């Protein structure tokens, strides 16, 4: 007899969690503790030596965090996951596993502005060199491959433009180059797109956005697809070579198809230190229980508002992949048939000043630098998230000066439309 495999919404509620073994508490407790007692010296040694399952110290792992990790791994269809203090921390840990000074990776040019900054400046100072490619021209990824290329990084749905990336086409380039494809799936969430099904080897998230979903906690996560052979040509010594700090254990040999997630924990998180707090893990976990319901409402509202804006006389253009005729509509139908997400941009005929006015006249939309909240949010990327870029780079990364970004919440859409209407005519 084979069990009936549970669906996405069941996993969103149950995966990773079970009643607490000591108290019977049904909701995952917040294990707000730095450390965990050992049974005896032998138990301690086997935990430190990675020989036993269990907890040591919350910088390396924590039971509340572990439930969050298993839940997101299950939703993404991965083998294991590692939660971190933020989405940016997840990216640092991933690249530290893969790159040595002087190595390169290829990144799509259309990315969250903070990621562009991180790759350009912080990573440069570590000697990790980024080569930019255009997600609308797959051959630009191929041309960027060199013998030092160690990974390719894209966003499934890009922030801020809301454009959809042809994940399978980029995955084919990565496979040919023999490097892993890393997909930032923050804006889509696994409810809309599961990048592993399309060839991703590693998925990262800012849990801060739709997964947590309530704008109350910063967090990030790395999901291991279990698909990449790290030992093939010794390009990834962190995973294939004996680790001196663990008595010569080879991580991939020992942990098989979840070796990358383990390496991120026992080497990356242990040494770099960006652990998620148990309280944040708890809040994000609670948020994920309603992810399917929220994403349905987010997408339904976003589509209605994008359609309404596209007929408004003050609006020059709406860029929402869920709109018929949008440049990315075909990719959205292929990769995100349940909805094109809830973050999109539009430009105003009145240009930069009209954008600034709109933001200041809105009463329900909050002007802030986040997306993926229950509340509807608005920002003018050119003057905020992307302000460190020059005008040409702003346009290339999808943040032109006359452009406004919305993150549509789960309020009543009639109220959101009324707010936009009064602000556009004020």
């Amino acid at each position, binding site marked *: *007899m*084979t*069990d009936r*495999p*549970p669906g996405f919404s*069941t*996993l969103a509620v*149950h*995966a*990773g969690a*079970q*009643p*607490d*073994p*000591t108290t*019977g508490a049904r909701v995952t407790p917040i294990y707000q503790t730095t450390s965990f007692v050992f049974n005896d010296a032998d138990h301690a040694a*086997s935990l430190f*030596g990675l*020989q*036993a*399952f269990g*907890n040591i110290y919350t910088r390396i*792992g924590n039971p509340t*965090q*572990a*439930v969050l*990790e*298993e839940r997101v*791994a*299950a939703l993404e*269809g*991965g*083998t*294991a*996951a*590692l*939660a971190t203090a933020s989405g940016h921390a997840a990216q640092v840990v991933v690249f530290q596993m893969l790159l040595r000074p002087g190595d390169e990776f290829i990144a799509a040019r259309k990315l969250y502005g903070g990621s562009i900054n991180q790759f350009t400046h912080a990573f440069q100072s570590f000697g990790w060199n980024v080569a930019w490619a255009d997600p609308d021209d797959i051959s630009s990824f191929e041309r960027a491959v060199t013998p030092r290329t160690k990974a390719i990084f894209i966003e499934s749905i890009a922030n801020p433009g809301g454009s959809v990336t042809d994940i399978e086409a980029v995955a*084919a380039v990565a*496979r*040919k180059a023999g490097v892993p494809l890393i997909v930032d799936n923050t804006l889509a969430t696994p409810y809309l797109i599961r990048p*592993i*099904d399309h*060839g991703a080897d590693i998925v990262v998230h800012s849990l801060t956005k739709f997964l947590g979903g309530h704008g109350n906690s910063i967090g990030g996560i790395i999901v291991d*697809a*279990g*698909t*990449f*052979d790290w030992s093939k040509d010794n390009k990834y010594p962190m995973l294939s070579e004996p680790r001196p700090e*663990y*008595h*010569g*254990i080879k991580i991939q*040999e*020992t942990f*098989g*198809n*979840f070796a990358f*997630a*383990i390496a991120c*924990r026992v080497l990356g998180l242990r040494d770099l230190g960006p652990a998620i707090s148990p309280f944040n893990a708890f809040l994000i976990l609670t948020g994920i229980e309603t992810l399917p319901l929220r994403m349905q409402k987010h997408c339904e509202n976003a589509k209605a508002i994008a359609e309404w804006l596209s007929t408004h006389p003050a609006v020059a253009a709406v860029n929402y992949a869920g709109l018929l005729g949008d440049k990315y509509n075909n990719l959205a139908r292929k990769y995100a048939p349940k909805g094109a997400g809830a973050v999109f941009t539009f430009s105003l005929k009145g240009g930069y000043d009209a954008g600034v006015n709109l933001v200041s006249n809105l009463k329900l939309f909050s002007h802030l630098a986040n997306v993926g909240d229950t509340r509807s949010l608005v920002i003018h990327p050119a003057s905020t998230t992307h302000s460190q870029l020059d005008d040409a780079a702003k346009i290339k990364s999808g943040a032109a000066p006359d452009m406004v970004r919305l993150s549509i919440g789960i309020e009543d859409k009639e109220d959101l439309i009324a707010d936009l209407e009064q602000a556009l005519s004020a």
Partner: protein
Amino acid sequence: MNHDAYDDNYIRAILNGVKSIAMVGASPVNVRPSYFAFKYLAQRGYDMIPVNPGHVGKSLLGKPFVASLLDIGRPVDMIDIFRNSSHIGPVVDEALKMTPPPKVIWMQLGARDDAAAAKAEAAGLTVVMNRCPKIEYGRLSSEISWMGVNSRTLSSKRAPMPTQGMRLSLNRMSVGGGETTASDRAAKNKNDPA
């Protein structure tokens, strides 16, 4: 029998059914994977027998090493082979000479020998290849969840606190078949390089 992906129920039946396990290639070096798999399975209540001709006269966690399967001198339910793929064949031949023969041949993570598997199956044995019994036990009991690993199982039951020698329930609801779509795809890509 498809050895690219196992249904959870196949693995579950084996781990629930066997009581004694002879581990060929067990190492007394406490940083080798065979050592910690041996130790874990002993902690979970299996009757473990270390087999390694290089260590006869010594013992592993109180269990004396034997040189070969034929030296065990009592019935054994499962042979766990901790050797490279190229050394599997002779071990399976030896296992088939045991009286009574074992019920299960298990080849460790990374090890696979389809011809040896076919021979064992023809003799009525059950075979698992390229898996770790510690990982599978940890997964089906969800003990492995402490490390953020996807156990691919669910349960609304309260689990006991594990103590030394305690067998855990492996009868949780399975999320997938034997494998994630991801590792199926990895296996496929290995045979079919782009």
